């Protein structure tokens, strides 16, 4: 389980996370919902060890992550699919897929990944950045399934994508969840997370303002919509 308590984080002088508290139990899908600038990406970056100045508690399977470099966090089995997808422009699609090193047993085979994402297989020799936005998103997800990481951080995987692609990603996530992965899913699309997350956290101005179990989500939807500014 990932346990975050009283977490503060800064970009230089600007204080962005203010006493964040949340838990992500093993094998669950947990959503983190909030408006632009609420601190969702910063939370992901902090978990990954990418923030310069942080304070508070952040532990995964009992290890204090705040003491680790990003590569050491990755070696604990945590993998990031970032908001900008970070497909490497100098690498082919296949090289992008193969870049993250295997950090544990039990990752998906390349064959299985190609089965899950047939578009990626077709385009495997293209430059990574020649893919469409949807294909890039799939590649960014596919890339971290190979490594054996069991804890996935997905930062707004549906952002800017057409509804059919969103559906395809939704089906993929359902499949991944079925395999027992733990997922922290950052989103602004409440409808998308509703079908898949077990627990929902609502974030505003760098701290958690509410926590909803899947069963409570529907009757609190007005609150969620208000938080998201809809």
């Amino acid at each position, binding site marked *: 389980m990932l346990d975050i308590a009283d977490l503060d984080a800064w970009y230089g002088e600007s204080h962005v996370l203010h006493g964040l508290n949340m838990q992500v139990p093993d094998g669950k899908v947990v959503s983190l919902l909030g408006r632009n600038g609420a601190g969702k990406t910063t939370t992901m970056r902090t978990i990954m060890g990418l923030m310069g100045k942080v304070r508070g508690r952040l532990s995964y399977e009992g290890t204090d992550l705040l003491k680790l470099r990003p*590569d050491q966090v*990755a070696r604990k089995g945590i993998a990031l699919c970032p908001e900008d997808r970070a497909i490497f422009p100098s690498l082919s699609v296949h090289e992008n897929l*193969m*870049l993250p090193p295997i950090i544990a047993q039990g990752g998906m085979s390349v064959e299985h990944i190609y089965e899950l994402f047939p578009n990626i297989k077709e385009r495997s020799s293209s430059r990574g950045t020649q893919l469409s936005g949807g294909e890039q998103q799939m590649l960014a997800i596919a890339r971290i399934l190979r490594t054996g990481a069991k804890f996935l951080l997905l930062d707004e995987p549906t952002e800017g994508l057409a509804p059919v692609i969103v559906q395809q990603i939704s089906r993929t996530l359902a499949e991944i969840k079925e395999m027992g992965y733990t997922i922290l899913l950052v989103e602004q699309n409440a409808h998308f997370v509703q079908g898949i997350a077990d627990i929902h956290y609502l974030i505003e101005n760098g701290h958690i303002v509410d926590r909803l179990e899947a069963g409570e989500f529907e009757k609190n939807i007005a609150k969620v919509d208000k938080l998201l500014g809809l």
Partner: protein
Amino acid sequence: MDFNLNLILGQMVLGLVNGAFYAILSLGLSIIFGLLGVINFAHGVFFMLGAFAAYMLSEVFGIGYWPALILVPLMIGALGVVVEVTLIRSLYKLDHLYGLLLTLGLAFAIEGLIRIVFGPQGLPYSIPDSLRGAINLGFMFLPYYRAWVVIAGIILCLSVWLVIERTPLGAKLRAATDNPQMVQAFGINVPVMLTLTYAAGVALAGIGGVMAAPIMSVDPAMGTNIVIVVFAVVVIGGMGSIFGSILTGLALGLLEGFTKAVFAEASSTVIFVVMVIVLIARPRGLFGKMA
């Protein structure tokens, strides 16, 4: 001007020898700049140290040219590790200018030190026995050793290029050049990668130094002399382009040789003239991606 075809061809072949050194050196500079963002002004000094290391191995231990080709890059690479870890590493967060100043200062210091220890005069290093003699190309007698330098230099550069473009190791290097943070977030120890890349880049210069020892004067200034031309090559080719730096190095060696044959007075300036023209017409260089 005097157009004697044999002379022109002969000078161009010899120009290719220099071109091979330009290619080896600008390749290392490009790799280092691409990943570390450091313009390594100490590059020429590592070339010079490579030649001196070969000289010392031979004088002190009786170790010849062929083993030196393997041993010297390892020694220079190890020195590169020390330099990166103790000095260069602290500059990554600062402007490129600081890296330039530090490596330039380092170059002066090391060159001065070598001058104090060995004196300014050139030291002799002999051609390996197996490469003595020359081949008649019809238009010239080409010493075997120079032919070896051209062929080995080109093979060396192309191998490095293939490793970078076609292997998983090269993919890591390219990815880290694109986005080091993300590469580190995937579990790759990027700081170690930077160290090893610097070491590999200067080790290449070290190999160049060994190859140069039998045909250039082994003296403290040899690195500075060649690296001035190499920086012009890098500016013409475009900083950060691997293949561009190889091609430009060889091409400018040829051009220099050609000029030597038709208008010898201009042979040492022609590369700088080309540099000025390229800078005006295409400031990023012929193959450059970066500003």
